[in-house]
């Protein structure tokens, strides 16, 4: 039913409000869709990941309990156990007990 045909005034008003709400949700969805990979260190000591991104290798040191966002467009990561993994840029690397897991 179009908003103009609503009987009561408040219904009429909230009907229009719904439209703006839908627009806002669409906007939020559009904004919320950019992500990067994130790494969480749940250990009590600093852990290091080696990140290869854009042609250069760099060490990513994670302090105890720290969460870091990195690698927005895909990269290679050397995990603490020596494994080499590729990331697309939407994963979460969780380090606990010296072992990294990709979720």
């Amino acid at each position: 039913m179009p908003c103009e045909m609503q009987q009561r005034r408040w219904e009429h008003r909230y009907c229009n409000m719904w439209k703006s709400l839908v627009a806002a949700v669409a906007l939020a969805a559009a904004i919320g869709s950019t992500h990067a990979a994130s790494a969480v260190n749940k250990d009590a000591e600093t852990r290091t990941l080696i990140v290869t991104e854009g042609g250069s290798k760099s060490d990513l040191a994670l302090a105890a309990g720290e969460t870091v966002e990195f690698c927005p467009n895909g990269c290679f990561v050397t995990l603490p156990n020596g494994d080499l993994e590729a990331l697309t840029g939407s994963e979460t690397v969780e380090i606990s007990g010296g072992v990294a897991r990709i979720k």
Partner: protein
Amino acid sequence: MPLPLVSRQQIMLFRLLRLILILALVVSAPPSFDAMAQALGQGAAGLITDQQKVIQGLTAKTDDLEKKIQQDGEDDAALVDIRLQLEDLSRAALTSALAFRSRLTDINNRIEVLGPPPAAGQPQEPDIVTGERQALASEKAEINAVVASAQNLSIRISGLVDKIGNMRSALFRNLLTKRYVLSDALSPEVFSDAHDEYANLYKAVSSWLIFAFKFKFKAILAATFVALGLALVLLVGGRRLFGRVFEADPTVEQPSYLSRLSVAFWSTLLPSLAVSVFLASTVFLFNYYNVLRGDIGVFLNALAAVIAVVFGVNRLTNAALEPRLPNWRLIPVETGPARWLVRLTTAMAVVIGVNYFLSIVNDKMGSPLSLTIARSFGATIIFGVILILMAMLRPFRARDGSWRPWPAWLRYMALALGLFTIAAALLGYIGLAIFVSVQVLVTGTILITSYIGFLSARAIGEEGAFADTSVGRWLSANSSYDDAALDQLGLAVSVAINLMIVLVFLPLILLMWGFQPGDIEAWAYRLATGITVGSVTISVTGILSGIIVFIIGYFLTRWFQGWLDGSVMARGKVDTGVRNSIRLAVGYSGVALAALVGISAAGIDLSNLALVAGALSLGIGFGLQNVVSNFVSGLILLAERPFKVGDWIVAGDVSGTVKKISVRATEIETFQRQSVILPNSNLINNAVGNWTHRNKLGRVDIKVGVAYGSDVKKVHAILTEIARGHPMVLKNPEPFVLFSNFGAAALEFEIRVFLADVMNGNIAQNDIRFAVLEKFNGEHIEIPSMPRAVVEVRKPEAWPTDDDKIEADFVEQEQAKVEAAAEAKKLAKTGRKARKPDPD
């Protein structure tokens, strides 16, 4: 030989396309990688060899591309193409490495289950366990080797991309600084070259035409008609849809800026779109029917692009300058100069377009360098002259009628640019001249468009302007926004437009000036995901999403409130006081919830907030004591409901009706229409009288004194009779007449009557007092009074002598009476109801 002059223009267009692509990418979700899903179904051993092959293939392609970089090192467009291919390869390498993830996870899990190998002193483990561990370790090593090769490939590709970037900037520098020897290019030989080329072109086109008419005549006719039909549908449909805003109405004296803008916009967009659709569909259909042959397709493409651009530029300048209708002009220049400006701009577009088309022809025909140089030379010289002519125009008229030039900075800048182009061309720096002229044209167009955008933003932001737009009219008709709200909305819209212009046009200009899209993308990304200051990360998207979540929560709360109040509780016949309380409570809790969710959505850690709140609470305890106590009192008022909106309450000196109960204070309107804001703690801590708490029943006392010597029994009877006889007085509780006192001057009585609605107290009192006085007069009962002031009565005036004056006065009085009667009638007509007097 392909000349950089040609490719530079193509790259301009190409860059624009790239930007649009990037914008689309930013909006859409990141691409998903299907390789993982595919990999799950494959066997472990097959997986490694498969991916090894994939990576070998990618490496081979990369080798090819590296060779191509060396070969095509002079061609900018080819380099860009190679870069895009390399980026694809890099993504493919990443995807192939991704295929190992699930297998690697399985291996790691298995190794964890098997545990570490036994140390020296410990008992031996079974051989099968050792064997499996070794097998797993070797498989893992193989996988790591493959992933490492993918990583190396991606590093190599990154290096190549960097190299391409360097080569391109070197090419660009070379283009700008390369000097051609004009005396060679502009020799008479050029004319014979040009003639040869023209002959070649003529031959190609005419042979194609003969072929087309002989074998493909029907196809050509069909294609042309279909394309024409499409364009007509678009044009006619557009006219029907936007007809009202499409054409400038010459009868309108002073159209608003916004209507001028919308006319300009639609009258540019629709015809340009129609022409573009016609050209594009013609080319497409010609391709589809295989009408095109050899290089003709390329020529036709270029020709279509040039026609579309020239037509669009002409429409745009016509719409913005409206040489025929001064009222509808967007940029306030005079009529004559407006006509000249349209001509000059169109000429500029034609020059650049023809140059572009000829460059394509030269390229395809493999014409000599001298011809290319001569063509570019001519085009840049003409362009410079047109620019200078534009700068010399005097487009404005002063009050005294004399012509005024452009503002000095604009005039001198255009002059300098025109002279620079001509000078560069004359000195042989053709590449530089072409570059500058294209830059001037494109940047100028972008700047003028954004300037018009700014003007429209300003027009919307003006007071009352937004309410006049169609959106504003729609809003005011369909929602409860009043003028002030619409005005603020207009302001917000104008700010948003300004922001949008900066967001859209700034990257465009940066792009035109040679910044790489990657740079802009990286900046946008950094701005969106967060700037880290110390340990705090401020991210625009975070804050925006927090605000949006809060707004959504707020509207949801309001909607829920309205729904609860308007349909559930109204139909459930809930008492208004309860309704009000529930509505307020729902509102406060909803907004609080929305704020909390919004804060966490903005990425602000709530535990940090708790820390701050803990530190502040001491301060709050001292400083905000009153506010907090009022707030708590407000909550108690909502729960306990000693009074509701509309009640007549007496709190201390204040007596009036309750208008609004909010968290900190309650608004009371006295009967003199004074709003009193009473802090809620006052209403909780002190006694509050409420006349209309459970019901509106109330007692009214009327004192009557009679003279000593009156018949008190008779007085009592009369008073009782009067009290009982009044229609507003309740029968139960019965009215009661109290003989209250032997007063100093009178025997005092008190009529006590109960009314169903104490708000009617004054009416009842008045009626009863009038009745008492009347009855006492009839029964000759005296009401004693204190000594009264003696009023001297004036003697009547003598018989008037001036008849004319009396008559005039009389007429005046009569007229005043008539006017007063008319006024009263008008008031009655407006439907103003006679209002009940206030009870106090």
